[in-house]
């Protein structure tokens, strides 16, 4: 009950602070621009001749992943910067005093914050992602093989990052927590790309960088699963083995073990956050 009250409060904050409206405008601009760009793909004159609809769909599949990455980035940054100030910011400002002096468990308050942010982040990813898929379908007639799985994995990626941002928010200052969360998100993505290049070059050591980073912070692993669900199954084959390190194509779907690890990761980090928040003097 308390958790739901706090979740509703968190969502209301996102609306009242115009975070939602800012994201809506940004997303609309991105959708319109991408729709315009995709519509230009068919019949595009390239050095190799006019692009066929099949080639256009292939390129669309890759571009779709690029744009989806944009959305996941927006959602990640949005939730990280919303989650960042939520605990330490409210403690610093004094807002937490009146709330935590009520007959509430801190874990309930934390759960409410988490649920509110989760609804916000996942809602955004699902709606903006679906809109983008529809735009691509309208423009070039491409529809990904597993759109629901892709969107779910994007949402899971957002949940991982917001859970991390909440943990950081319980131990460091509001601004630092947002910056560190987004920084780690970016670093893991880069590590994933480096690992992909290592794999393409057959260098196991470099490839391990990506594997380890995907275990330490599952955002990149989930992102790769989402890409795999969005991309044309023939795209990777057509791009050729030499392009296996390409950052906007994924060579395999996620395993059940990795998904389980991501769920455990979220549970463990959430538990650490609850412990840290419980012990914190406000």
């Amino acid at each position: 009950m308390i958790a739901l009250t706090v979740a509703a409060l968190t969502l209301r904050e996102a609306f009242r602070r115009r975070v939602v409206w800012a994201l809506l405008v940004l997303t609309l601009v991105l959708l319109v621009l991408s729709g315009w760009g995709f519509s230009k793909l068919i019949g595009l004159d390239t050095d190799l001749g006019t692009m066929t609809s099949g080639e256009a769909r292939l390129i669309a599949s890759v571009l779709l992943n690029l744009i989806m990455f944009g959305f996941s980035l927006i959602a990640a940054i949005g939730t990280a910067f919303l989650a960042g100030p939520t605990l330490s910011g409210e403690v610093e400002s004094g807002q937490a005093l009146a709330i935590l002096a009520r007959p509430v468990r801190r874990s309930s308050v934390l759960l409410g914050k988490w649920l509110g942010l989760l609804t916000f982040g996942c809602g955004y990813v699902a709606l903006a992602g679906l809109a983008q898929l529809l735009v691509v379908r309208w423009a070039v007639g491409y529809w990904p093989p597993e759109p629901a799985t892709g969107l779910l994995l994007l949402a899971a990626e957002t949940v991982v990052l917001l859970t991390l941002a909440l943990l950081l928010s319980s131990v460091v200052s509001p601004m630092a927590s947002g910056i560190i969360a987004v920084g780690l998100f970016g670093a893991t993505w880069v590590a994933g790309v480096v690992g992909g290049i290592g794999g393409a070059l057959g260098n196991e050591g470099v490839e391990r960088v990506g594997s380890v980073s995907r275990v330490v912070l599952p955002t990149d692993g989930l992102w790769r699963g989402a890409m795999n669900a969005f991309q044309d199954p023939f795209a990777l084959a057509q791009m050729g083995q030499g392009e296996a390190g390409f950052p906007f194509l994924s060579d395999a779907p996620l395993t059940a073990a990795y998904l389980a690890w991501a769920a455990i990761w979220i549970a463990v980090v959430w538990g650490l956050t609850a412990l840290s928040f419980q012990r914190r003097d406000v």
Partner: protein
Amino acid sequence: MASADAATVRGVTSGAVGLADLPPSPAVWCSGLRKRYGRRTAVDDVSFTVGRGEVVGLLGPNGAGKTSVIKMLLGLVRPDAGEVLLLGRPSSDPRSRSAVGYLPELFRYQPWLTASEVLDLHVKLAGADVPRVERRQCLALVGLAERSGDRVGGFSKGMQQRLGLAVALVARPELVVLDEPTSALDPLGRVDVRDIVLSLKSRGVAVLLNSHLIGEVERVCDRVVILDQGRVAASGTLAELLGQREVRLRLAGADQRAEARLRTAGAMSRSGDWFTVQLASDDDGVTVPDLVRDLVGFGVRVHAVEPVRISLEERLLAVLRHEEPSHEEPDKPGVEP
């Protein structure tokens, strides 16, 4: 000892049928509270009680540990040692705060909510069933009836503190903790707060009031706890703390016999014709008339008899400057088995 006392209070509040007639447990009972921040000891062995319906003032200089004590009572800060019972429940149990209203020293409320939405939120968090009319009355009580639909972000500091007062009062509390409730208020607002505290007292609501305004505390509090350097420097009822009344007499022709008689009434000092006698705190009111009668009987001319009352401010300063021995009251839970 403290644990045994806590167990006693817990036993009483457990709702056993045979104990139903016993008086309720104190609004606040704390024993042996300690808190260190790094190397600095903020609170050291603080114990006191706030009875039901009692108004207790928490006084002390800056950094005395008053806010830390309040936060430990409310479970906002973890004590390194000590026990707290709020309304008969240990403070580790969130339900102990079900009927507690709190106005923090650092008052800040969600700027994106309206004043009435802030109250709605706190009613929900408190799990209370407070009708809308009563919430509106609460805002009216603190002078915010006209601004109930305005966002808190546009409020002045004084208005935010008034809102904080409404938040503390809205969920029908049995204990209200006010930490510097008038720090941002104008003189009119201070009078409003005083009236609100007196109204709470008349309704049997316990109040723990931390304020720098000693006059404010003196007017509304039944008892005072003075903290200094994290320790209880003195505590007791106002009568106990201010009980050291004095009487000044201007006498002519006072001989040794008269001075000896003066000394029997209390510690005496002389400055020219003026004699000051400290009266006992349990003076029954006949000491001075009897003294004057005897002095006149000795042939002394009594020109003036002036009662001198020590103010709380003087008493506080004396305690903090260690100019007189402090006397701590023995702390014990207000419920006896």
